[in-house]
């Protein structure tokens, strides 16, 4: 897609001759090709190219005379453009090109400055952000502390505009106050991970723009501060962006960005191989060699912040026995599943916290595959002859059904346990998994959990503490450790506590610890782009090859 400046069919041989006239016309009137109307999609090019491409040079892109168009194809489109009214990754990717938060993350997950360039804790445990100067919204208005206050309140308080599904994402915010170019957020109690939360969540919108426009309008239009501005929105079909020439960090090298979706993974791969798009998400393992063997694209993968596990409810037989749960961990050959089902795209795990996340305990070894030990532990637990059923969602996680099939078979092949598999449609499984009472939740389930905050507590607390929204475990010792971690002000001490909690979780074995999922992208050879651990796609860091 890069290099040509005709519309998206530019590579079609059949169109080359006919398109020439149009292409010449466009090239003639815009210095670097620009993102002007392409004739077919009615793009209005309203942001008007200013000639220079605004590349800041740091990425080695020379700008040059070639327009740099970039296409991203995902599995699903956004659910509207309101950055605060959704709870899924695809929408975050699409709105995240235009909206930003106070803090941001680098590709490895480290916290970096966003709209705030200074941040600190105050004496009472609140957090103060000093806003960057010279930030403007896409409509040209300056970013103010009041806008930030409004945005945070709109997310966390149900009576400000909308009931946001992100209500809990910023912690228990009690109030937001503004000063001269700064914002202070107070919490109910001490919030040790406030900055981690703000680096992942909390997109900032303009108060007056939100208040003047209705929900339908806000979901079809955008007015953020991010590196890209919206040029065209066709709901469920395509979103097009142009560079924000006034971006505080310099305009991105990409002149025109488009995001589309194909739910069929084979269609995405075909688009990539036909050079109609540059980045495709979730390439299935069986298509990897097809992409790699082509001369137009390669596979680029990264260990993601998502962990896959089989959770076992602590209060029902036979899973009430710790030996039995440990036996299940020995019975499943995770290494072979990663190798054979996922073509190597996975890291074996032995604790709820992933490597690189706060609280990861490097001393914990995954349970080794040892069927004999598993059978011995089952005997010891007193549940020899147990019949269990593993429930798995269909198509929610990379090869979930195949993974569950392999695990269930391996458990079933133990001489003293039989295991069946039950496939469930995800949203009906979610209904059970999120049932208010633990007694109503399924006994044995394959689940995945993304931890975009890169902090162990964000997995341990919701999934394994007694009060967790999704818990299948009640353990006083673990609860105590998590509560301690939540109130500890010394970060190093907190890490120690979380590491201890992970060791305990490993020993208690509430899950069959499976693997860390990989995000597998197909990337055009025309561009250079590195994926991120948190599943977000950042085309502003892509460069032309």
């Amino acid at each position: 897609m890069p290099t040509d400046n005709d519309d998206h069919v530019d590579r079609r041989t059949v169109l080359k001759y006919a398109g020439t006239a149009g292409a010449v016309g466009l090239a003639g009137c815009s210095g670097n090709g620009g993102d002007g109307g392409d004739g077919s999609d009615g793009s209005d090019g309203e942001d008007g190219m200013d000639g220079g491409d605004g590349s800041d040079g740091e990425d080695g892109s020379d700008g040059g005379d070639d327009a740099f168009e970039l296409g991203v194809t995902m599995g699903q489109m956004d659910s509207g453009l309101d950055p605060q009214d959704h709870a899924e990754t695809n929408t975050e990717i699409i709105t995240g090109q235009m909206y930003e938060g106070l803090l941001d993350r680098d590709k490895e997950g480290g916290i970096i400055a966003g709209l705030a360039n200074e941040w600190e804790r105050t004496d009472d445990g609140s957090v103060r952000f000093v806003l960057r100067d010279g930030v403007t919204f896409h409509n040209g208005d300056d970013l103010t502390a009041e806008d930030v206050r409004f945005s945070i309140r709109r997310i966390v308080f149900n009576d400000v505009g909308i009931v946001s599904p992100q209500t809990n994402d910023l912690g228990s915010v009690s109030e937001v106050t503004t000063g001269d170019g700064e914002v202070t957020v107070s919490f109910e109690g001490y919030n040790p991970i406030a900055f981690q939360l703000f680096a992942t969540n909390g997109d900032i919108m303009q108060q007056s723009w939100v208040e003047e426009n209705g929900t339908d309008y806000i979901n079809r239009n955008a007015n953020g501060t991010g590196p890209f501005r919206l040029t065209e929105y066709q709901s469920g079909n395509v979103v097009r962006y142009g560079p924000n020439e006034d971006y505080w960090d310099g305009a991105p090298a990409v002149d025109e960005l488009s995001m589309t979706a194909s739910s069929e993974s084979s269609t995405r791969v075909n688009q990539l191989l036909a050079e109609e798009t540059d980045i495709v998400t979730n390439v299935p393992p069986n298509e990897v060699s097809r992409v790699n063997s082509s001369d137009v694209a390669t596979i680029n993968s990264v260990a993601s912040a998502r962990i896959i596990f089989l959770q076992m409810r602590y209060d029902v037989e036979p899973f009430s026995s710790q030996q039995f749960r440990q036996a299940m961990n020995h019975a499943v050959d995770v290494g072979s599943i990663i190798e054979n089902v996922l073509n190597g795209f996975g890291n074996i795990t032995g604790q709820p916290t992933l490597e690189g996340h706060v609280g990861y305990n490097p001393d914990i070894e995954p349970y080794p595959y040892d069927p004999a030990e598993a059978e011995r532990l089952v005997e010891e637990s007193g549940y020899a002859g147990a019949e269990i059923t593993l429930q798995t969602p269909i198509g929610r996680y990379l090869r979930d059904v195949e993974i569950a099939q392999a695990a269930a078979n391996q458990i079933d092949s133990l001489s003293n346990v039989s295991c069946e598999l039950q496939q469930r449609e995800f949203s009906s499984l979610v209904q059970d998994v999120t049932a208010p009472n633990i007694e109503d939740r399924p006994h044995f389930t394959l689940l995945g959990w993304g931890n975009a905050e890169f902090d162990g507590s964000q997995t341990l607390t919701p999934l394994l503490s007694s009060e967790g929204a999704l818990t299948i475990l009640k353990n006083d010792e673990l609860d105590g450790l998590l509560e301690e971690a939540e109130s500890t002000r010394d970060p190093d001490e907190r890490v120690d506590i979380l590491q201890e909690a992970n060791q305990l979780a490993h020993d208690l074995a509430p899950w069959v610890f499976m693997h860390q999922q990989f995000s597998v992208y197909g990337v055009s050879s025309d561009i250079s782009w590195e994926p991120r651990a948190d599943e977000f796609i950042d085309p502003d860091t892509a460069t032309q090859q």
Partner: protein
Amino acid sequence: MSLGRFALKRSLQGIGVVWGVVTVVFALRFVTPGSPINAVAPLDASQETRQAIAAELGLDQPLYVQYGQYIFDLLRGDMGFSYIRGQDVATLVFGRLPATVELAVAASVVAIVLAIPLGVISATRRNEPVDYGATLLSLGGISTPNFWLGIMLILVFAVEFNIFNTSGRGATVVDVALSVVNAEPFVGTLLTWLAYITLPAIALGTYFMALITRLTRSGMLDELSKGYVQAARAKGLPQTLIRYKHALRNTLIPVITVLGLQLGTLIGGAVITEAVFSWPGLGTLVIDSINTRDWPTLQGSLIVIGTSFVLVNILVDVVYAYLDPEVVND
């Protein structure tokens, strides 16, 4: 019964059917396991957040209130609000309808252009190699699943030979027409349009083509054996005139009926083809809405698909009654 009364009667029946569709589609939401809240709220949302979302969306109201409200809104032309997309359902659905209609019409054109000549040739050269070829082709067309055909077409003509686009929609018929009005490069726009629509139209139209070929062939054979054809032959009329003016004309009456009915089927049946080609029509919207549990949009889409089916049926019936007045009295 007069034609007017007949049309009125069929229209009233149609309204009844549409009401049935609306009710069934509405009820489906409540017999399907899994709450729409789960699609909106994150997995670890607290019960308070879930309840607040339910209250905001009106999902905490009793069933009959929700149903009554839904019917009332529909009568005012309001198809509701998609809580997943945060947008008006009517805008979403009617925004997608043209793409689906365009694809269905293109598929019909592909089918008709190929099927009628093929059927005629097949009938007039009965039991010759051409006939066997056409029969084989139509059998193949009927038994090939269109999603498989779609994937194969993409692999061969888009990925391998790079002639057409793999997926998406580049330009619309309206763009093609406007390019003439606005003095834009007409050929370029036309070719863009063709690059995108050709493969999905073939994939969707193949089954239909096979059907029409078979229908035309048997219809022609039937007509050619009738007395008036024999008489025409005896009078020495040229074969071409007999075949194409007289016999084909009579053959086409049932073909047109099937055409009308199939257009409705094509609109509904485009779902899989649209998914394979990422064609931004109602089919893709239906699939997306199912995946995201976007009930209001799913309901809206199904109602529009159902209603267009009913409308086409009524239209075909009325046209048929006009052509053959005896139908009215049956």
